[in-house]
């Protein structure tokens, strides 16, 4: 039989049509897709021995205990430790996804420590270039003492804007919270929720936050009037009466259902005085306790606040933002720097914070890559000492801030965390909880070696109860934000947000508006309409200090005439509490 060209076309067409009626082409498409999943360079879950390791989360000073499920050396799942006396098995969404952070795409990975060291050394040797200072955004750590010792040797300043007060919620029967996100990341989540059934919560806040929604009473207040409310309540307590009915009602509740406690975000003098009059000082409100340190460390520079410093006096500023509990707006720092060529070096995990203003941004390790102790939490009246034990190795090129600053001052190299652990053991007080066996022992019953071994395996030392030291009033970090007029009144989100958060968490947690993302603002629908903005639109937030690019969420829960702003450093640089702000479309 002779095959014609037409026959070949018919044969080929028939074969193609027939092939489409078989699984072959569809199977090949699927298999090719699956094959591409395993190309070199595409990450794959590790295979290996499954084991459990323990650490303490260092994303905030709550320092919750963490049980990590590891495959080989790779942590693949984090969970709480139920028997832990402080964190009680709870982890916040940041903590649950902390093991993603070493792989964060926005992570700072490069920076020349040698160049920075050269510039700093040159500035120090230049007598006319101002003093050296360290800004420590999480004071109370062992590295904080290293900074203080280094500054003492270099005649420098140690700036620490941290928490100076600790609270005992378990002793309180009534809590008045002035905008504090008490039930949303303020303290140790497990500890706060364990204490919650024991106190009545009055939440005074401009917006019905999640804490306000879960409080017994929500008092809507104008942004920036929290101190006024505190003064009115103090007045009502003192005079047994007053003009402000709401303040009188709260005063009666605080005095009749004690012990009472008043919390605020800024440690204002009015709130401190109110706590004094309620008898909270030295009882439910105590001076922030700290774990013992070696006696030789005591010759260290004292903590200074920005407000106490002379303007244009700092020539070299070293900022440790590898662990962050708060953020000082740049406009409060900049006036303290000398006018001519100040050297600013920041140790950071990302470029979003002070790296925007620094000559040198040096990459620092992120949780859970490095060993570091965690200072006592705000809701712990007894001192604690925990170490965030590394679960993964840091990548090459990371700079250790304590090593950098210690070398600058010529401090001898030593294991400072171990030295401090020995000092705690020598003090012989308190108890030690070990997560692996969930046992608690008295420190005096174990050797220094056993104490260190347990701490290295995420053990938690808790000092004896009985801290009755009343806190001292602290000077404010900066001048109060001028109230001004016109525009929208800013409500600052008070929740703590780490510099880096898991991209997966931000996907499921923030894009669904469960929590305002750091670079977002929220507007009432009428204000959004007036500004011609839709949900998700890009806009500028403008204040007298400048403007910042933001994304807009339209939220009817935000009162008209107000704007709720996120906690991104870019926003905090231009916008403070109760600031007057405008929102304009891009």
């Amino acid at each position, binding site marked *: 039989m002779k095959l014609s060209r037409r026959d070949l076309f018919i044969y080929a067409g028939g074969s193609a*049509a*027939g092939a489409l009626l078989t699984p072959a082409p569809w199977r090949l498409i699927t298999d090719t897709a*699956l094959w591409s999943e395993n190309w070199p360079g595409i990450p794959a879950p590790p295979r290996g021995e499954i084991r459990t390791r323990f650490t303490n989360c260092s994303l905030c000073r709550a320092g919750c205990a963490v049980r990590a499920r590891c495959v080989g050396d790779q942590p693949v799942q984090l969970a709480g430790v139920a028997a832990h006396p402080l964190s009680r098995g709870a982890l916040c969404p940041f903590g649950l996804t902390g093991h993603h952070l070493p792989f964060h795409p926005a992570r700072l990975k490069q920076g020349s420590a040698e160049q920075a060291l050269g510039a700093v050394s040159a500035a120090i040797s230049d007598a006319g270039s101002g003093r050296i200072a360290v800004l420590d955004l999480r004071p109370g750590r062992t590295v904080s003492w290293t900074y203080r010792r280094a500054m003492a040797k270099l005649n420098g300043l140690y700036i620490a804007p941290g928490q100076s007060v600790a609270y005992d919620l378990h002793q309180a029967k009534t809590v008045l919270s002035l905008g504090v996100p008490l039930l949303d990341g303020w303290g140790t989540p497990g500890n706060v929720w364990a204490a919650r059934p024991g106190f009545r919560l009055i939440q005074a806040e401009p917006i019905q936050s999640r804490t306000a929604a879960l409080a017994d009473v929500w008092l809507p207040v104008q942004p920036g009037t929290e101190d006024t409310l505190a003064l009115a309540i103090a007045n009502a307590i003192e005079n047994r009466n007053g003009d402000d009915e709401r303040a009188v009602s709260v005063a009666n509740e605080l005095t009749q259902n004690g012990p009472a406690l008043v919390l605020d975000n800024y440690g204002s003098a009015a709130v401190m005085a109110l706590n004094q009059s309620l008898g909270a000082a030295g009882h439910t409100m105590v001076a922030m306790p700290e774990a013992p340190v070696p006696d030789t460390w005591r010759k260290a520079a004292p903590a200074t606040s920005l407000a106490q410093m002379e303007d244009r006096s700092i020539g070299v500023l070293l900022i440790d933002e590898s662990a962050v509990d708060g953020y000082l707006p740049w406009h409060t720092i900049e006036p303290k720097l000398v006018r001519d060529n100040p050297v600013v070096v920041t140790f950071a995990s990302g470029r979003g914070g002070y790296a925007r203003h620094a000559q040198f941004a040096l990459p620092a390790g992120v949780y859970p890559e490095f060993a570091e102790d965690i200072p006592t939490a705000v809701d712990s009246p007894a001192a604690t000492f925990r170490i965030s034990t590394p679960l993964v190795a840091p990548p090459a090129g990371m700079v250790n801030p304590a090593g950098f600053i210690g070398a600058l001052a010529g401090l001898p190299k030593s294991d400072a965390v171990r030295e401090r652990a020995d000092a705690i053991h020598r003090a012989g007080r308190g108890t030690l909880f070990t997560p692996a066996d969930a046992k608690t022992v008295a420190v005096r019953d174990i050797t220094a070696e056993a104490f260190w071994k347990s701490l290295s395996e995420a053990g938690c030392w808790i000092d004896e109860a009985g801290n009755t030291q009343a806190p001292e009033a602290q000077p404010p970090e900066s001048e109060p934000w001028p109230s001004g007029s016109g525009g929208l009144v800013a409500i600052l989100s008070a929740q703590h947000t780490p510099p880096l958060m898991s991209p997966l968490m931000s996907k499921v947690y923030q894009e669904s508006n469960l929590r305002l993302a750091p670079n977002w603002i929220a507007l009432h629908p009428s204000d959004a309409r007036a500004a011609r903005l839709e949900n998700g639109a890009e806009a500028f937030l403008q204040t007298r200090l400048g403007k910042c690019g933001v994304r807009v969420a339209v939220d009817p829960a935000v009162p008209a005439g107000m704007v709720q702003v996120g906690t991104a450093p870019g926003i905090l640089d231009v916008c403070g509490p109760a600031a007057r702000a405008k929102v304009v479309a891009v």
Partner: protein
Amino acid sequence: MLTALGAGWGGLPFALYRSRPQPVGFSHRVHAGEAGSKCDDCHGFRSDGSFTGIPTLDKCAGCHAAAMGTTAAEKNFIDNYITPRREPQWAAYARQPENVYFSHIAHVKRGKLKCESCHAGHGSTGQLRPYQEDRISGYSRDIWRGKKMTDCVACHLQQGLEHSCLDCHK
């Protein structure tokens, strides 16, 4: 067209899959029947709840340190694996792609599903069938021939259980 249909339906399985025998002639029927073992005697859970999957040599050696019967398969197993302490390179029929996570304990302990619900009569087979590996993707043929994602979803719908992408796809 007929040629293509024949090749596609009849020839594809031979061309696409590579067969290889399991290292040891193992009878689930003997172990589950005559020996009276239960599934979780060998395929159990670790203390953290993770599934052990195919047992390691240590588990087998617990019973077969010395011969329990007279079969050639057992003698071969003891001589070639138990005595030299050589781990058999079992091929797991149901190993899922790396982006799929399946929790056995959630289904067996909380959902109270029987093993047979998903693994059908695998526990009563007299011998292990050859493992068929997809030449292109490298995965077992069973992940497509056995239970598929649509089966998981159908069961969850039938039971009135919630399900979402991130439950299984990490």
